[in-house]
């Protein structure tokens, strides 16, 4: 057999790049697709969670006796039902899913109930008496860092400092990245701009609330149906929290109604399992939207200082950023990634970024699409824009002059391979949008963005069925059309029509471990594994044909869905189709399947440039987005519709973040806008069409050149829109969201000054 195993970045494709209908399409337009809350089991109970109304309080006692007496209540769990795990990775998760000695945020779970009906469960929650001792709280990142701020965790000392801290602090850790000598660099600059920025916490805003259905017996054998970005992660974490053998818990990923990073951890899943074990009946739990806002997600709110210097001819000489991210009640804000990505778009001799991970009395942040990067890019790209305009240079020209390219030592360390940033900038320059005229009160903004993209653990199984069609099992939940992409890659590699492949997301018992669908990794890593599994199957099919023909296996090649003699010397045999090989598989050695397991690396980084026009109403401060263009490197677009969809979706989440969305806390430390009415995500009438330009600078780490596309698209919008609004309003906006009151205030202050 002869297989191409080298990187085939220049290869021509038959099916990759086409736009077939997704395999789960019909189910999703007819209402048949089963999401987290769409499952039932016989004898099923309904579970609900009692949550703290206080942002910070000691939980002195929990009295469940009156609730337990209510007819129909079958199980109640509290902190007493969860032993603190030994695994240090699970400690914070354990304390987050169910408060221990203290509640740390408004919405923190304190008890959960399973009852025969939702109404009884609701009544039971009212009967649980929790005695709190209220403590002072802090929800703002800068306030939380001040000496004298209420301390969330006794014994927490800041890590990564030059001298060992002697006092407890809400600052978990300091991160530092960079190279060169920034002091020296700033001295070489003709112009230096330094600005401070703030961004509000925003929620991932998936339309499907968290939901699961748990069924587990006293023997520790169980099943869990759940909407998640990673059912293997859910299995491992829940098994750890409940003290189960990992193999005894089978987790099935439902269809998932959006995740954006927010479904990469657990909340109600271990509670449902614990209730089910206690009641010995299936328990279904579905969060309300109020709970989703108060107790899951959001991303960090931030406070940032950025300083950049450049020479008169437009060369950046030094760049410095200090980022302060609060990540809610537990360690782990994405500030390290914010600090690593902040200056990744630029080729810099002297660069330093410092990040502080801070805890506050808010829900523990969860990953949100390119975690940490959009905020850092907002601050950096705002200063870049101002520098360019002070230098009298075009923003795109200034960026092109300083852009990172192949061979650039990145601001976070590693040297870049082939990357597409300059291509996105050049294409932006020549794009019609960049040349379009603007009217009164209108402004144009541009910004660049970067994301690493991940790879990771992946396991794929591809089974040849007796009729020659293919069943492909992957272990990465499909959050945006990945089954279509996997089917395309398998079909391309095998040389069969797309509709001869059916891709499913298999449960945790059916495949080896798969990392979470996160970090824009799925089309890259599961795609790579799919291609390799197809090649594995092709090798076996060639072997069967060779047996039938009585020639050596390496004298058979695979071409367009057929095993063929590799050359004239191999003999004159009629090519065998997959269907023919499949039909006689049982007579030639048994079933045929291809497998691939890998901890993949080589996910190529990606870059984007966005152009946006906005109009500011000087009377009301309202911002309207008029036109939006995304230019992004996809490496290779497997299914361009869904690549465009990622570009458009990222841009629009960014629009919401930039102009509307924010977590608003009152003086009492309670979230004031825990609903879609007051936490307003963009709606159709707020928006124009989102134009997209897919660029393809192949990633040498993937057989087809794929780079992740999901996250980079949300990195530039905050900055691009801030630049656009600042140009339209005639005053620099440094705080998100740029809601009408903030824009009006900025205009007012500017006019007075």
């Amino acid at each position, binding site marked *: 057999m002869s297989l191409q195993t080298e990187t085939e970045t220049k290869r021509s494709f038959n099916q990759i790049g086409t736009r077939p209908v997704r395999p789960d399409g019909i189910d999703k337009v007819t209402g048949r697709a089963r999401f987290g809350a769409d499952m039932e089991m016989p004898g099923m109970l309904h579970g609900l969670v009692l949550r703290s109304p206080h942002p910070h309080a000691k939980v002195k006692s929990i009295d469940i006796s009156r609730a337990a007496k209510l007819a129909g209540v079958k199980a109640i769990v509290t902190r007493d039902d969860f032993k603190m795990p030994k695994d240090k990775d699970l400690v914070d998760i354990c304390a987050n899913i169910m408060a221990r000695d203290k509640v740390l945020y408004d919405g923190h779970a304190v008890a959960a109930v399973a009852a025969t009906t939702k109404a009884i469960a609701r009544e039971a929650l009212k009967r649980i008496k929790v005695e709190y001792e209220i403590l002072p709280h802090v929800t703002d990142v800068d306030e939380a860092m001040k000496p004298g701020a209420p301390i969330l965790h006794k014994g927490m000392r800041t*890590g*990564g400092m*030059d001298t060992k801290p002697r006092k407890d602090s809400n600052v978990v*850790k*300091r*991160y*530092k*990245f*960079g190279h060169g000598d920034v002091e020296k660099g700033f001295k070489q600059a003709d112009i230096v701009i330094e600005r401070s920025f703030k961004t509000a916490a925003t929620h*991932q805003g998936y339309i499907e609330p968290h939901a699961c259905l748990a069924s587990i017996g006293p023997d520790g054998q169980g099943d869990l149906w759940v909407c998640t970005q990673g059912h293997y992660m859910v299995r491992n974490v829940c098994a750890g929290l409940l003290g189960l053998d990992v193999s005894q818990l089978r987790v099935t990923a439902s269809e998932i109604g959006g*995740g*954006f*990073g*927010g479904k*990469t951890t657990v909340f109600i899943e271990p509670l449902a399992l614990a209730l089910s074990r206690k009641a010995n009946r299936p328990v279904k739990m579905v969060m309300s939207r109020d709970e989703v806002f108060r107790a899951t997600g959001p991303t960090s709110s931030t406070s940032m200082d950025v300083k950049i210097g450049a020479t008169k001819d437009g060369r950046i000489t030094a760049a410095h950023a200090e980022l302060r991210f609060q990540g809610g009640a537990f360690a782990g804000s*994405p500030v*390290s*990634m914010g600090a*690593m990505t902040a200056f990744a778009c630029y080729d810099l001799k002297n660069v*330093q970024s*410092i990040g502080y991970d801070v805890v506050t009395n808010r829900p523990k942040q969860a*990953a*949100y*699409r*390119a*975690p940490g990067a959009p905020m850092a890019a907002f601050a950096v790209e705002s200063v870049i824009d101002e520098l360019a305009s002070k230098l009298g240079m075009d923003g795109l020209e200034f960026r092109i002059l300083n852009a990172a390219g192949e061979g650039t030592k990145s601001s*976070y*360390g*590693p*040297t*870049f*391979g082939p990357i597409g940033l300059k291509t996105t900038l050049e294409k932006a320059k020549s794009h019609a949008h960049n040349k379009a005229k603007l009217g009164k009160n209108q402004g144009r903004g541009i910004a660049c963005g970067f994301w*690493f*993209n*991940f*790879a*990771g*653990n992946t396991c794929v199984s591809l089974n040849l069925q007796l009729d020659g069609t293919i069943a492909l099992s992957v272990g990465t939940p499909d959050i945006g059309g990945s089954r279509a992409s996997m089917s395309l890659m398998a079909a391309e590699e095998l040389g069969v029509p797309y509709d001869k492949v059916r891709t499913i997301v298999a449960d945790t018992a059916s495949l080896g471990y798969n990392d979470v669908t*996160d*970090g*824009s*990794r799925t089309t890259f890593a599961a795609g790579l594994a799919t291609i390799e599994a197809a090649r594995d199957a092709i090798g076996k099919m060639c072997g069967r044909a060779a047996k039938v023909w009585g020639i050596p296996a390496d004298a058979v090649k695979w071409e367009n869905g057929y095993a063929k003699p590799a050359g004239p010397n191999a003999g004159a045999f009629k090519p065998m189709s997959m269907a023919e090989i499949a039909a006689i598989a049982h007579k030639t050695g048994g079933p045929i399947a291809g497998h691939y397991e890998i*901890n993949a*690396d*080589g*996910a190529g980084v990606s870059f984007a440039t966005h152009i946006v026009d906005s109009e500011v109403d000087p009377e009301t401060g309202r911002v309207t987005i008029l036109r939006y263009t995304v230019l992004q490197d996809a490496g290779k677009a497997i299914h361009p519709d869904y690549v465009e969809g990622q570009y458009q979706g990222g841009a629009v989440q960014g629009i919401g973040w930039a102009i509307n969305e924010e977590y608003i806390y009152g003086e009492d430390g309670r979230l004031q806008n825990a609903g879609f009415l007051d936490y307003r995500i963009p709606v159709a009438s707020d928006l124009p069409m989102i134009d997209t330009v897919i660029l393809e600078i192949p990633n040498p*780490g993937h057989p087809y050149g794929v780079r992740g596309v*999901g*996250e980079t698209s949300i990195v530039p919008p905050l900055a691009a829109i801030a630049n656009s609004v600042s140009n339209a309003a005639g005053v620099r906006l440094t705080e998100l969201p740029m809601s009408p009151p903030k824009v009006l205030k900025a205009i007012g202050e500017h006019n007075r000054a």
Partner: protein
Amino acid sequence: MAKVILWGSLKKAVGGKTELELDVSDVRELLDALGERYPKLGPQLDAGVSVSIDGTMVRDNLFVAIKPDSEVYVLPRMAGG
């Protein structure tokens, strides 16, 4: 000897310098060498790191080769959305 660069916050744990020359041929040897020579790195290594070898990001995989002229960056463990 591969050039190994640690991210800034680890400077103190490795005695003030962040750039090391290490004779290692794969990720396992790298992590072992760091742990043995600089015990103060222990907690960070336990917490998990990402390693970039000549620009390619590697996570957990111990047997990825490091060449004598490789440029290796040790970075915090990353999570995505």
